[in-house]
């Protein structure tokens, strides 16, 4: 059927400007909720607030203060600890689960995929509350095993156990999510490559090293970078689990320290500075990761 044509000049004009109007909301929202706050926070990092109404220009004073601040460094160490712990534990577990659930020998794959993915559907706050009970010193699930050996471990009460407890919780929550990415990657590998490897006499391990891993490289790079960024932005889980980073800031992370400065100490300029330092850390690490994993390399 021939499309009805309107002779109305107004509507002809509309045809021309309509596309711009339809994409305008995104740009408008981006400018209001991203562009303006970004520039504003950069400006704010050069000032310090005095109460609610006034502020003073301090130049790079906030940055120099930050690099001399021991709690910032401790929070940075904790965050790095979490990131390294998460990546070294969570990604191999996620890959292993994906390989198992991609195998034709495993029964009930759909149920298992859902079961491993389910934790990510639980909000971080609830995960923290649940794991508060799991790590309970007296009656927690974890100590029920360890207590047999005569020790009640204060997972959330002793400095050295706090970050391991947070890491294990993060692994529980996110391994299944990353498993889905790996699973999708595995299903995209052409069967002919395995057949060719088999013809060449490759065993299972050799096929994994020479076919599976190289084929998964883009997925691994993506999961690695996204998990690293998520780890560096860690906040809600340790905040609830450790009641604000205690004891002795053992559970404090960069974003938690940012939140405390901004909202609890009313040091908005300092908090903005932490935000920008975190941004640069994430940017540098992400670029290095992508470079090392060969994402910028021409195939």
């Amino acid at each position, binding site marked *: 059927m021939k*499309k*009805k044509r*309107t002779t109305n000049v107004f*509507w002809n004009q*509309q*045809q021309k400007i*309509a*596309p711009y109007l*339809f994409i305008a909301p995104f740009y408008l929202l981006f400018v209001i909720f991203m562009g303006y706050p970004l520039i504003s926070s950069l400006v704010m990092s050069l000032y*310090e*607030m*005095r*109460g*609610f*109404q*006034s502020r*003073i220009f*301090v130049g790079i004073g906030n940055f120099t*203060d930050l690099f001399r601040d021991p709690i910032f460094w401790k929070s940075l160490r904790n965050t790095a600890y979490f990131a390294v712990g998460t990546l070294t534990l969570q990604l191999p577990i996620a890959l292993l689960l994906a390989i198992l659930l991609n195998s034709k020998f495993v029964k009930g794959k759909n149920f298992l995929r859902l079961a491993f993915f389910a934790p990510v559907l639980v909000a971080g706050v609830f995960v923290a509350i649940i794991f*508060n*009970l799991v790590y*309970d*010193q*007296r*009656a*927690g699930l974890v100590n029920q095993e360890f207590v047999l050996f005569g020790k009640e471990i*204060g997972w*959330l*009460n002793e400095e050295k156990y706090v970050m391991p407890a947070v890491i294990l919780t993060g692994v529980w929550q996110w391994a299944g999510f990353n498993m889905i990415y790996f699973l999708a990657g595995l299903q995209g590998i052409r069967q002919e490559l395995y057949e060719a490897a088999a013809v060449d006499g490759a065993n299972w391990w050799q096929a994994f090293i020479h076919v599976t891993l190289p084929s998964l490289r883009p997925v691994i790079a993506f999961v690695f970078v996204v998990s690293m960024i998520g780890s560096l932005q860690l906040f809600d889980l340790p905040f609830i689990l*450790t*009641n604000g980073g*205690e*004891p*002795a*800031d053992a559970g404090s992370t960069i974003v938690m320290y940012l939140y*405390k400065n901004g*909202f*609890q*100490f*009313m040091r*908005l300029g300092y908090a903005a500075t932490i935000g920008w330092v975190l941004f640069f850390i994430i940017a540098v690490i992400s670029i290095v990761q992508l470079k090392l994993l060969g994402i910028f390399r021409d195939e």
Partner: protein
Amino acid sequence: MFRLPIDSESFPLGKGPMVMLILFLISTLFIFGRSEQEGENLEFWIFANTHYEEYQARVPIFEAQNPGINVQLINFGGTMHDKLLAAMLSNFGAPDLVEVEITSIGRFLKGAIDEVGFVDLRPRLESEGWMEKLVVSRFTPWSYRGKIFGIPHDLHPVVLLYRDDLFKAAGVEMTEVETWDDFIAAGKKATRDLDGDGRIDQYAIVLDRRTESDYFSLLLQQGGGFFDEAGNVIIDSELAIETLEFFTALFNEHQIATPVYGTWHGDPSNFAAMQDGKILSILAPDWYVGILKSQVPQMSGKWKAVSMPAWYPGGRRTTTRGGTMIGITKQSKNPDLAWEVLKFTYFDRPGLVNRYETTRIIPPLKSAWDAPIFKEPDVYLGGQRLGELFIEMAPNMPPRYQNPYWSEGADLLNDAIFAAVTEKQTPREALTDLAGKVRALIAKDRGRWGDL
């Protein structure tokens, strides 16, 4: 028949975008087209569920007595303070009335005193004679530089809750304990390895070494504090150091204290340890008794309450912990009406009796204390008259001076206490370092701003 000037075929890009546009217009009309309720409207923000439930029952009575006035109660829970901070920063969207928690008020006092976002209530309190009717020491957490920014919701005197049966089994009569030295002697008898496996099975007291809560309560009982009335840092005073030495000794030298199980005294883990008989006593403000009753009802009849041990014979037998204030924000368009609602919710005797009934919170209004409910035996405490005990303590409660740097100070104090108890630093080193850091922080701000 009425026809739209366009149809879905001629609409640019077709039917889908047209539907989206119509939905957008309808929702915009819905959001911005809502009419305000007629009469005078007042917004009241709350962060505590128990308070919210109380006001939900009480506010309709006020509205019935004052036709044409609508009080909108909004319970934001734990995020309320952040929302209030954002509203005050943007100078837009703050409520008329708001309740603020004691550890959060400091951040609202930053900057010039005239820029604080709450109305100074001192003139109203003085002109209407309320100051004499309330416990004066309870205004200190909500006052700064001579101005009173909030009315206390509560007193929160602290008593010692103890397991009478287990102390008696150890040959200790807790009613005879008068001083902390007596308590240490009693605690050494009661702290025991019951099964002979070399591990202590019951501790005389549970204390929080992760946060300032118990240490700071003890320091206040001594008459100390983090800041004095003039805003000077006094956390490295000899009194503060002695108190931290005493606090750490309860864990390390006397070994009669166990760290709190879980993350705080209200943690399920801590309640489990109580039920196991591992904890024999705890420093308990009035609100904590309410929590205990609701969370561990099966322990009814097992606890008793006694005045806190004093630091010296005849000394103060209580302290204070926690608290909430109500304030009127400067953004309120009708502070007079807000003041009336404030008085109804905070100074009305039937409401305060109801408050004690549901939460065990003792009100700061002295004239309410003779209500029969405060003299009733408390079944949970084996028939003891808990209300009477708290009211007996109330006039001796120590002042707790507020300061804009409390949040930063408390965060660092948590670390100092943990460092001292775990013997990474001596109490003197920990508190001296802490005081140095907070003084440096204040000095830096003064360098930038001049006198704060």
